[in-house]
């Protein structure tokens, strides 16, 4: 039997419960009755009755200094994750000092009033854990992940690095050199280059256009004073959230928070207001090729502005994006499964405090880069041209729901998810409402979202690779293509091209 149709998946709610019940398990594979009637070896047996699950509920309190503490108890594995979230990230880097927040996140683990860089690493690793810290968009996350028996000393070190970093000149210079080398390595990878270029193309000189890790020029400029100012301005209890998740009682977690963060003083000066979400800037779409003749494969991206995290269209966007991305999403269907042009194609709707990017991408051999660009763009456009059939839409919703639930299965995933909701000021009830919100999205919601937010006419194309293999084909369709040799690429500005040196 070679023509089994893709099963249709119906969503069945097995009841309404309070708390964080997830109904993903209520997904039902309904096969045509005629198939069920055949010999059991020839057709898949239908599913049994679904079961449900409850996720632990976050509890929280706020310390007198304004620090918000959120605890999620779950004792299935003897591990605890503690993550301190600063509610700003790369978007508050001054334009000439891009990469400052990220480099600062690295630097705070390199020495405090009590501990040297070496002692910090030794102490935290002796606990079996690791201390991670990095700036992202809209937040900076510093955390430890340890066996539950080690959480006390781990939070001690966490609080120390956040509150009392010393910013020694020697450490700054060492880290500066390391950061420059890291950037050099990143800029050897076509995919990384393409993502940096896409950010500049979509957001221009606005904050989200800046490279989060900085540029060789900006990293060279940063001074100790810049670190001190940044730390004083943003690392303060009333601009932070401590999220603790795993095998720990809420009362113990609150006790640890009070002990190590309770006397963290809130500065007298007012907290700078969060930048208000900016309206979508409709930048002129561009077609940019970065010519890297030694690239072993081309990275192809199509990118445009998407939506912000608090947009009422959020769930429409999530579901619309899921039709395009994932293993069986349209992009991978067309590019990998049907044509063998890539190991994987997908898209990302990156929602942030202000409007974030929508990016569809794939890597392919240099010769097929122009074809892959057309396929990416074609699939994104097609989403607005007609409703997605239910037989396709329902499985994609199941994917969204399954991914959501699996992300909550590990401590680190659970803490990251709760921290993100907290950063964007979203109620934890959303965890409970998530599945319903996804289920409620209709084919016409998806089509309307695609029409208003994924219009291909406002979409730019970025290709990084060996241009002589694909440029003639790309240029036929896009005579306006800008070609930038790798040696002339400048990520400091939206122009993307180094100014010609005199002489």
């Amino acid at each position, binding site marked *: 039997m070679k023509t089994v149709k893709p099963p249709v998946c119906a969503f069945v709610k097995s009841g309404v419960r309070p708390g964080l019940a997830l109904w993903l398990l209520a997904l039902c*594979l309904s096969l045509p009755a005629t198939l069920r009637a055949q010999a059991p*070896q020839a057709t898949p047996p239908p*599913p049994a009755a679904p079961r449900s699950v409850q996720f632990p509920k976050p509890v929280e309190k706020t310390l007198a200094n304004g620090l918000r503490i959120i605890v999620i108890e779950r004792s299935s594995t003897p591990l605890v994750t503690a993550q301190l979230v600063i509610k700003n990230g790369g978007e508050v880097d001054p334009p000439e000092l891009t990469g400052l927040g990220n480099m600062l996140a690295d630097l705070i683990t390199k020495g405090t009033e009590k501990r040297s860089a*070496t002692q910090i690493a030794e102490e935290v690793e002796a606990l079996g854990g690791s201390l991670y810290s990095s700036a992202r968009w809209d937040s900076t996350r510093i955390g430890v992940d340890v066996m*539950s028996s080690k959480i006390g000393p781990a939070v001690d070190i966490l609080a120390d690095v956040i509150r009392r970093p010393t910013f020694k000149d020697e450490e700054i210079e060492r880290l500066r050199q390391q950061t420059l080398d890291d950037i050099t390595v990143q800029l050897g*990878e076509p995919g990384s280059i393409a993502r940096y270029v896409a950010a500049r193309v979509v957001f221009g000189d606005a904050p989200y256009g800046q490279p989060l890790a900085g540029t060789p020029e900006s990293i060279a400029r940063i001074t100790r004073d810049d670190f001190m100012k940044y730390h004083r301005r943003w690392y303060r209890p009333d601009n932070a959230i401590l999220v603790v998740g795993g095998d720990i009682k809420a009362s113990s977690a609150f006790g640890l928070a009070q002990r190590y963060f309770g006397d963290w003083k809130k500065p007298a000066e007012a907290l700078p207001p969060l930048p208000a979400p900016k309206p979508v800037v409709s930048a002129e779409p561009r077609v940019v090729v970065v010519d890297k003749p030694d690239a072993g494969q081309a990275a192809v991206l199509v990118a445009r502005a998407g939506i912000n995290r608090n947009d009422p269209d959020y769930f429409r966007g999530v579901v619309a994006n899921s039709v395009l991305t994932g293993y069986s999403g349209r992009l991978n269907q067309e590019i990998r499964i049907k044509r*063998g042009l890539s190991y994987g194609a997908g898209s990302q709707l990156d929602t942030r405090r202000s409007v974030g990017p929508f990016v569809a991408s794939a890597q392919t051999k240099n010769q097929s880069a122009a074809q892959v660009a057309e396929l990416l763009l074609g699939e994104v456009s097609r989403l607005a041209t007609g409703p997605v059939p239910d037989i396709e839409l329902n499985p994609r919703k199941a994917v969204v729901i399954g991914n959501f639930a699996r992300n909550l299965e590990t401590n680190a995933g659970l803490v990251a998810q709760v921290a993100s909701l907290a950063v964007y000021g979203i109620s934890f009830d959303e965890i409970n409402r998530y599945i319903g919100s996804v289920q409620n999205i209709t084919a016409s919601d998806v089509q309307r979202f695609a029409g208003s937010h994924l219009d291909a006419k406002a979409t730019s194309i970025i290709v990084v690779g060996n241009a002589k293999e694909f440029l003639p084909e790309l240029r036929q369709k896009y005579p306006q293509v800008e070609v930038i040799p790798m040696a002339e690429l400048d990520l400091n500005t939206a122009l993307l091209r180094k100014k010609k040196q005199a002489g």
Partner: protein
Amino acid sequence: MKQRKFGGWLALLATLFISSVFARDSFAQVAMPRINFDEKTLANGMRVLSAVDHSSPTVAIQVWYHVGSKDDPPGRSGFAHLFEHIMFKATRNMKSEMMDRLTEDVGGFNNAFTNPDVTVYYEVVPSNYLETLLWAEADRLSGLTVDEPNFKSERSVVEEEYRQSYLAPPYGMLEYLIEQQSFTTHPYKRPTIGSIEDLEAASLENVRAFHETFYRPDNATLVVVGDFDPKQLDGWVARYLAPIPKPAIPLPRVNVKEPQRTAERRITHNAPNVPLPAIALSYLAPSQKSPDSEPLQVAATILAQGESSRLYRSLIYEQQVAQSADATPDLREDASVFYFNVVLASGKKPEDVEQALLTEIKKVQDVPVSAAELDKAKNQLVTNELRQRETSNGKALALGSSAVLLGDPNRVNTDLAKLQAVTAADVQRVMKQYFTAANRLVIYYLPEATKTNPTTSSINHMFQLRPTAAIATSIGQRGGQGK
């Protein structure tokens, strides 16, 4: 404090299979939750391992085939991995990609990977789909019906996987060289990804013959972990898997012995797209079943895990001669390779960095590691293992790996004691025994003076079916591009 790693996901994936697994009563004041499993062997030779865990209403299903890239047919390097991709195409009762309909479409996922020793297929689905997936796994074990266009298209996907994993990233080809050059005789010298030429030569006839030779119940281990009823599982196994006949023909096994190295060998490789020069040292080590595996893992952890490790402290922090420094005990069934790879800091000379690395190795040979370092390494290894076992799929990987690669599923619960027993003297002994000049391969990986096209060649390691972080998710680390 970010991890400074290159080849990150490969190294991590490899670690999954090389790290031994631990039992309860850890020295680390933490009870490693025991995996209480059930074991049986069907009349057709198929082994079934199962463990109930109701913490999430999902179930992980894995089928481990004891065939890897070391079993690639002659002139067909990369075939075991290409074959793994073909297992998602048409079977007797399923059309191409139906596995995705049965998993992804109901909120689950599937993936597979091939390494030099094994090929593993896995699915995580809502638990009410367990019977459906057992039927599907039985169906593809019973036979493939893939056609020529689907075969060719999937072969192109594998070629793109090769480019994405080895040609696009700056140090992909260094990983390849380490794998390829570390063995001279054993088929481990053939990279798991193979070569474009060999992949292009592969045919549907090869697919049929490979399935017949290696995809048989007496070469398979089914692992089921999660939310299920053991009686129901037994019934479904009896119904769908037990009837598959065991072939009469013998199962071929690789019996080649890799000879001991007798003198240092040095290779200089100039490649395109090398942002900073890099060096690698590789040493041959015994099979992962050897009792030396635990001390070698402790040694690797002391040398290179985290910013308090010897190599980070010395090469990156104090001397500032390296951008990254890794040590990987790539433990395998027949013979292992322990390798170091170091990307140089800008402006440094490979000769100097090689000397600095050798000095650190010599220190561990000359002076026993401290008790504090030993404890730290054990804590790190236990914590890694706990993270891996957070999910049903992670538990199933630990169980399957013990059964198939270590030869005894009970080791999933008993190997912690072995790790706990490792002493500073053990670490010193294995460092002296294996890290000798005569057992050393040195690779200098340098930029080309002039630009040329990248060479197409082949690489060894573990290859996943899809560019996803599915395994990564199970150990709670690493992002990914999604499926």
